[in-house]
């Protein structure tokens, strides 16, 4: 069985999506258990795969039994075997947590919702696992299309915001497709490893350069890297919480993974960092992304939108780290994919709980939440600590590597940007905490006022949230192992 894990982790959610879709027409109550079971199996095979990779090294899975350059193959190496469990576990926890919210919001359309949810997870997992440049495009589109569907169901402004996302997303995907076409025209291959082998003699070719630029711009568009981020905040803010807490943690992170995959596997670091020598400019762009993300977040008076700008800033972290061109920076970027996915999940799930109970996420709606929803707020505190970068939460450690990378690359601007955004995050979150913590100042000296007791979200929402919060700390404590046993091997030896 274990040799079929690579197929299982994409096929199981796909098949279950179809089954759920049929079940939606027959009996709606079947949808949720099927979806959870499917994601459970997926998560299990992802973890199994990680263990196998740790044991045996890179795994190649030939789909259809065709040898790689002919057919499509999966390459599971240290890089994606680390990202896979994150994606599947995030999806699973989020699904469980949002069951009530989904039923509250779409009583008639749970079937399609779960179908799209599972298809989206299929797409994201596929993107991570595939070793074929074109296959990646198709999966990108699955993830994108289902994402549009999920995001558009929300507040009044959601469809317009999603339509804008669709335009930008399509341009991004098409750019990527075009880049793959350029690679194909000069190499004749679509397999990533194969392309990497064929490219070195062509490093000076203008077509390869253009292919790289186009691919990068496409991927940046999809991950909302700073000047191309305009679609993200609105699309994520106005969506329903189940969708935004799936998509916000995963989509940008998976796209960062794609970028790192392109840099490390397809174009190879020698080309990207030595031949091109534009890494400094990109890191500066990342600096601007971080600073602008932080500043724009400061301007918001609305928790969810504030978080979306933080997502934009975090993308800057990862792009910058990856482009520093040294081992520490790359380690930081990869580690941050994991950490950021988890912490974004944590804070967005908190928003989900708040929306479920309070029906709003503007700052005015948050007053007194520490008393009303202590567990949710505890999770928010841990998530915030992680985003700020306080040890021992995991966010600190990826920031550590990023900063060490910046120092050893001599890029102090990036270091300053990271520090700046940490401090801004303190301000951002403590502004929120203040509102949640201080009651409306009715009686002056607050002695013994018990205006209303606890009004916590349902257990099924709080427990997954607390699990995520604990995971944040556990992952932080195991950073050393993750780096030593996984990430270290994900980065080619050539990178110092």
């Amino acid at each position, binding site marked *: 069985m274990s040799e079929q894990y690579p197929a299982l982790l994409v096929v199981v959610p796909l098949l279950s999506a179809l089954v759920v879709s049929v079940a939606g027409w027959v009996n709606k109550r079947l949808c949720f258990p099927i979806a959870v079971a499917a994601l459970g199996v997926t998560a299990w095979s992802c973890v199994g795969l990680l263990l196998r990779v740790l044991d045996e090294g890179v795994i190649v899975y030939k789909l259809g039994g065709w040898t790689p350059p002919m057919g499509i193959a999966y390459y599971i190496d240290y890089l994606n075997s680390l990202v896979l469990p994150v994606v599947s576990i995030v999806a699973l926890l989020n699904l469980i947590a949002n069951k009530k919210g989904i039923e509250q919001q779409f009583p008639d359309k749970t079937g399609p919702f779960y179908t799209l949810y599972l298809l989206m997870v299929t797409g994201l997992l596929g993107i991570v696992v595939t070793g074929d440049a074109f296959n990646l495009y198709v999966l990108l589109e699955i993830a994108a299309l289902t994402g549009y569907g999920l995001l558009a169901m929300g507040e009044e402004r959601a469809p317009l915001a999603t339509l804008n996302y669709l335009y930008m997303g399509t341009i991004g995907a098409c750019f990527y497709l075009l880049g793959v076409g350029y690679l194909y025209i000069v190499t004749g291959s679509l397999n990533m490893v194969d392309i990497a082998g064929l490219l070195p003699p062509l490093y000076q070719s203008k077509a390869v350069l253009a292919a790289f630029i186009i691919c990068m711009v496409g991927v940046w568009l999809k991950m909302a890297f700073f000047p191309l981020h305009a679609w993200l905040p609105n699309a994520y803010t106005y969506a329903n919480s189940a969708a935004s807490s799936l998509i916000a943690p995963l989509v940008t992170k998976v796209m960062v993974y794609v970028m790192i995959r392109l840099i490390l596997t397809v174009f190879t670091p020698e080309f990207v960092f030595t031949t091109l020598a534009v890494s400094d400019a990109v890191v500066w762009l990342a600096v601007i992304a971080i600073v602008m993300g932080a500043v724009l977040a400061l301007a918001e008076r609305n928790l969810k939108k504030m978080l979306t700008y933080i997502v934009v800033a975090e993308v800057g972290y990862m792009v910058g780290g990856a482009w520093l061109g040294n081992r520490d920076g790359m380690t930081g970027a990869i580690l941050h994919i994991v950490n950021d996915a988890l912490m974004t999940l944590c804070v967005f799930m908190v928003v989900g709980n708040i929306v479920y109970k309070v029906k709003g996420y503007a700052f005015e709606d948050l007053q007194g939440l520490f008393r009303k929803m202590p567990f949710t707020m505890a999770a928010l*505190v841990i998530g915030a*600590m992680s985003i*700020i*970068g*306080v*040890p*021992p939460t995991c966010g600190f*450690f990826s920031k*550590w*590597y990023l*900063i*060490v990378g910046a*120092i*050893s690359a001599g890029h102090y601007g990036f*270091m300053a940007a990271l*520090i700046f955004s*940490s*401090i801004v995050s*303190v301000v951002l979150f*403590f502004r929120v905490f*203040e509102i949640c*913590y*201080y*009651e409306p*100042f009715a009686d*002056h*000296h*607050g*002695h*013994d*006022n018990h205006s209303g007791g606890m009004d916590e979200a349902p257990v099924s929402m709080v427990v997954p949230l607390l699990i995520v919060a604990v995971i944040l700390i556990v992952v*932080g*404590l*195991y*950073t*050393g*192992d993750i*780096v*030593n046993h996984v990430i270290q091997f994900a980065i080619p030896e050539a990178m110092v």
Partner: protein
Amino acid sequence: MNMETIISIKPLLAILVSLLVVPILVLSGKRPNVREACTFLAAGVKFLIVLSMVPVILNGTQIVYTIAEVIPGVALKLRVDAFGMLFALVSSSLWIVTSAYSIGYMRGLKEHSQTRYFCFFALALSATIGVAFSANLLTLYLFYEMLSFATYPLVTHHQDHEARSSGRKYLLYIVGTSIGFVLPAMLISYSLAGTLDFSSQGFLAGTASKPLIGLLCFMFLFGFAKAAIMPFHSWLPAAMVAPTPVSALLHAVAVVKVGVFCVARVLTGVFGTNLLFSLNLNVPIIYIASFTIMAGSLIALSQDNLKRLLAFSTIAQLSYIVLGVGLLSPKGMTGGMLHIAMHAFGKITLFFCAGAIFVATGKKNISDMIGIGRRMPVTMAAFFIGSLSIIGMPPCGGFISKWYLVLGSLQAHQMTILFVLLTSSLLNAAYFMPFVYKAFFCRPEDAMFENKVQEAPAFCVVPLVITATISVILLFYPQPFLRLARMMVQSITGV
């Protein structure tokens, strides 16, 4: 210097005790008696664990425990040495006393959200012990930040406008500096040296140019803003909006001492005395410290609010410790380290007294307290002893540490510093003694106190008597602390 080390989980236990009691406190929130019994129990257990390690440390052995290897070369690691032991002993013993005092104070004033208060108090104590036992900069930073965030709800306990603005200031200074200065400085040190473990000779020597080392040194010095070195001091008076037990334990003992402890640790363990000495970095440090001492004392002179006065006094006294370490002479360092303990017991007494007065009378300003010594003789007697200790006069422990500081400045041939020390002692006397005099010997104006003003509840009074007594005892029996301080200095300087 190779020291014998043993691996033991005790330091971790000492930290975890107060962490693990938190869930119990939350669950027993509805039954105050259970809750407070648990607090006491945890405090007692913690103190015993710390105490049980003392003989081992006095034998010259270190206790080491690695929690997790988080980054290659840098682990979350605990190490108990003499200096950490000294600090842990002070803070864990004072937690017991403060717990008792808190109960009296909180119940006396019928404060709200007492469960939250006790929980975060316990958390803050965990962090403090964690700082004391940190074996490297990362662990230190972890607990330092944990302390910053755990004390925020305590500082803003009243949840009113004043608390909100003070809370903002508190966080801005404490977290802003730690992220803005300490974090980059730590990472630069890591990039330079590849390690963060404290060693008796520091690990930065020979890794970087002089300007960079100097820059790092000041980033650390100001980054640990809990040490309240000017110009990063103004959070401390602001934080006095907290309930008095918080001010007493945290802002006179734990938090600020964590700050100076970190500064001392970093100066000795990261830079090392030789490096500091060879680069002449100690000179700016002691002058900055001297400036803080003088300025803090002078500002304290003009204060009318008792707690603010104490706060400025604390700012000045903290710099004594920095000064002592900065002198780099064995006697001076011994004095600085001893001052951690001596000042702690003295200052906590003073804060307890301020709180007791507030509980009994509701007054905060000195000008309203004329003649209060007649109503609350025990409290004011303790206050007198505490202030003597701060001034550095016998029969109190403060005398010993100041004596060592004076010797240290002579040893280091710093006559200016000697002058500073003496002047500031005079200033200390100048801001404490008038109040003591007025409290005992002036007649209260009519209707200043309601008739029934009595001593505060026993839970408040007993702790302050205890700490005052300890302050006195420490003059005659300073051995445990003195030995620990000497051992530490010996390991650093070899003298």
